[in-house]
């Protein structure tokens, strides 16, 4: 194997095992060259090969990123792999790219409401992530997400503008797979209307859900305010009780 193929394989492994997440910036060629003790040109060749294969992309002046998945139809992260999700939000156009603006993030302590939703002790810290979600650069939803921070090592340092929260959670084996959901229509959410650039008093979907991972642990509680003119909700109702 040529030297650059070896480096390419190493970086690819790091992408696949979640060391680098989609949207995350890779170290510079210079730093990686030093890390792998190779010539900088070798790293450049490896980057070229990974770019060609669609794993990474380069942005002039910003560096090299792990490429994000190309969503066919949006599911604001909701529609997860095992299909056991119930209510699904779909935006009305195809080929959408999701981006985020982080409004605020940080640790919350001692919230009875959140510890009740997350089924953790009142003294356990909760990581709060408040985001505006954009589809093709138009605001679609304002989301308030809370996760038990004890499951995640460096969550406070993560750049959730570029990294998907679910990709991050999955890298710790804490991806929500089952959801309890609640959908309402509400009228008048002033602050959210501002973020979503809609008229005050316009209707919004209010979508609340609690996510449980494969180990039966609650890993997420989210409240999402979603534009009605950009999104619709679909689901299947069944007469059989399908709880496991």
């Amino acid at each position, binding site marked *: 194997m040529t030297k650059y193929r070896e480096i390419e394989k190493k970086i690819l492994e790091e992408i696949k095992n979640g060391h680098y997440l989609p949207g995350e910036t890779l170290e510079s060629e210079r730093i990686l060259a030093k890390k792998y003790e190779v010539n900088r040109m070798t790293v450049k060749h490896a980057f070229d090969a990974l770019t060609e294969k669609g794993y990474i992309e380069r942005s002039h002046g910003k560096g090299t990123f792990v490429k994000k998945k190309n969503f066919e139809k949006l599911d604001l992260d909701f529609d997860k792999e095992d299909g056991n999700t119930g209510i699904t939000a779909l935006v009305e156009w195809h080929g959408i790219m999701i981006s985020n603006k982080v409004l605020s993030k940080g640790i919350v302590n001692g919230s009875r409401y959140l510890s009740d939703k997350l089924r953790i002790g009142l003294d356990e810290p909760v990581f709060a992530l408040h985001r505006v979600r954009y589809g093709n650069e138009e605001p679609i939803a304002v989301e*308030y997400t809370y996760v038990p921070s004890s499951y995640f090592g460096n969550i406070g340092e993560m750049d959730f503008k570029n990294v998907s929260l679910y990709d991050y959670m999955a890298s710790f084996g804490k991806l929500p797979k089952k959801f309890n959901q609640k959908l309402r229509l509400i009228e008048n959410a002033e602050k959210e209307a501002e973020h979503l650039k809609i008229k005050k008093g316009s209707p919004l979907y209010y979508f609340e859900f609690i996510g449980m991972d494969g180990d039966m642990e609650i890993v997420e509680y989210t409240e999402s305010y979603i534009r009605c003119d950009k999104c619709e909700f679909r689901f299947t*109702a069944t007469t059989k009780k399908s709880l496991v």
Partner: protein
Amino acid sequence: MFLSREIEYLIENEYREGQALPPERDMAASFDVQRDTLRSALDLLEQKGIILKRERIGNFVAPSRVRFDLNKYRSTKRYIEGVGKKHKVILLTFEKISIDRRHDEDYLLPEGTLVYRIMRLRYANDIPMALERSHVLCEMASGLNEEDVHKKSIYSTLKNKFNITIANSKQKVTVIKANGLESELLKIERDEPVMRYEGIVYDSKGRIVEFFDNTILMDSVEFVSQSFV
């Protein structure tokens, strides 16, 4: 933001619908915050539909919404009674029609399919809540008549008279503006936003039994789906 959630927790655990909350001054003291902070938290809860504010009277826990459980698809009557509300339904029209192209596209049924079109007005606690348009396929329930659906659940009639077992329903929730008829019957302003709840209903053999599109007051219902307990 966090204060509003703590108040919500308190309401969920210690209050009933319609119950008055303590005076704002007392609440501010018990949460150890300023009156203004408390007020903005209460504003948030009003927006979320958790409480109602009545000028100079006080704050009250909002009436509970009719809860449609997607894991236990039932007649609307059962859902309304499920939250302890009085149920009433009035039959407005009953007719046999053949469906047009629009339905063809929406529901994968051929143009000209014969259906019973049933329009009803649904009440919870004597307040009109939904205008419902149900279309039952004639070939599935041949001979269905007004008597069968007057003050009765369509699903129980289908079960008892036609031996049809409803199995599931594909549904969609969007927002529309109320038209003249809808605003008149639901006692709201014309063009006010309302929920459009539509779906197609299958029996246990996978056959289409019914499709519906209902116009529902936004603040009267919620949908829940549970995949764990």
